[in-house]
């Protein structure tokens, strides 16, 4: 709570910070960094006692598809922030070579494991254990021919955008598109 003193008229106005109660997070991409950004934010909310819904759409569906979720890659081309170990620039043309993307992705995963960041399926296990909920987008599932049984057990349901918005009601709710 913050007290704000206004000069005219002489009144005291109390400004109250309303705590965040619910986050609805959307992940539309399937690279390691996009998926983990969404997972870290969702899990972080659950850990803080904030209600959390995580919604995967388009290429983000890979993160909840059983035979893809633990094989996510990071893109080694067209990423200007990509560096060699040691900090030298990473030439985009190197990223085109076979095996480079897999190698870089494996290195990233190893680095994350060191920081106690779990693999995708275990991360989702942590989120749902704390009461967070994970959903798939119906439109994207139809588009990619993905059925409920192709998806991880952590996925609660395949829902429409309308159902998603219905879940996002209530004071202190934020929708976050990662």
């Amino acid at each position, binding site marked *: 709570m913050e007290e704000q003193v206004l000069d005219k008229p002489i009144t005291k106005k109390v400004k109250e910070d309303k705590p965040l109660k619910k986050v609805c997070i959307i992940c539309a991409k399937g690279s390691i960094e996009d998926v983990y950004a969404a997972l870290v934010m969702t899990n972080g909310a659950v850990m803080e006692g904030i209600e959390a819904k995580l919604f995967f759409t388009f290429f983000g569906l890979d993160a909840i598809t059983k035979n893809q979720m633990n094989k996510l890659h990071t893109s080694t081309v067209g990423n200007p922030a990509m560096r060699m170990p040691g900090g030298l620039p990473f030439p985009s043309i190197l990223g085109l070579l076979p095996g480079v993307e897999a190698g870089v992705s494996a290195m990233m995963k190893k680095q994350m494991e060191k920081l106690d960041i*779990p693999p995708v399926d275990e991360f989702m296990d942590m989120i749902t254990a704390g009461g967070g909920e994970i959903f798939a987008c119906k439109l994207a599932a139809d588009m990619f021919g993905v059925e409920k049984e192709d998806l991880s057990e952590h996925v609660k349901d395949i829902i429409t955008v309308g159902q998603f918005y219905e879940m996002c009601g209530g004071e202190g709710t934020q929708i976050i598109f990662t």
Partner: protein
Amino acid sequence: MGQVNLAGTTVDFNEEGYMTDPSQWNKEIANEIASEEGIELTDKHFEVLQFLRDKHTAGEQLTIRKVGNSGIVDIKGLYQLFPGGPLKKSSRIAGIPKPASCV
């Protein structure tokens, strides 16, 4: 926040309500902080608290995953023991600093 009299001793807290000197901690103090959080401590709670204190003393960064892999309780169980903020609340009750990890 400064000093507070808890369970007959003077305990130092920071402004967020975390103890600043883990060596002042004892079970009675833990019970007092827990009741403030609306939690009644059981033996299972104390096992978790002891685990957190040991890891803190060893200088390890704490995550809920570590507690989940400790063999004391799984992550679902941890959320049930300390509802609405498992790592923050357990750290506070264990008399160690606020956790600084993101997972």
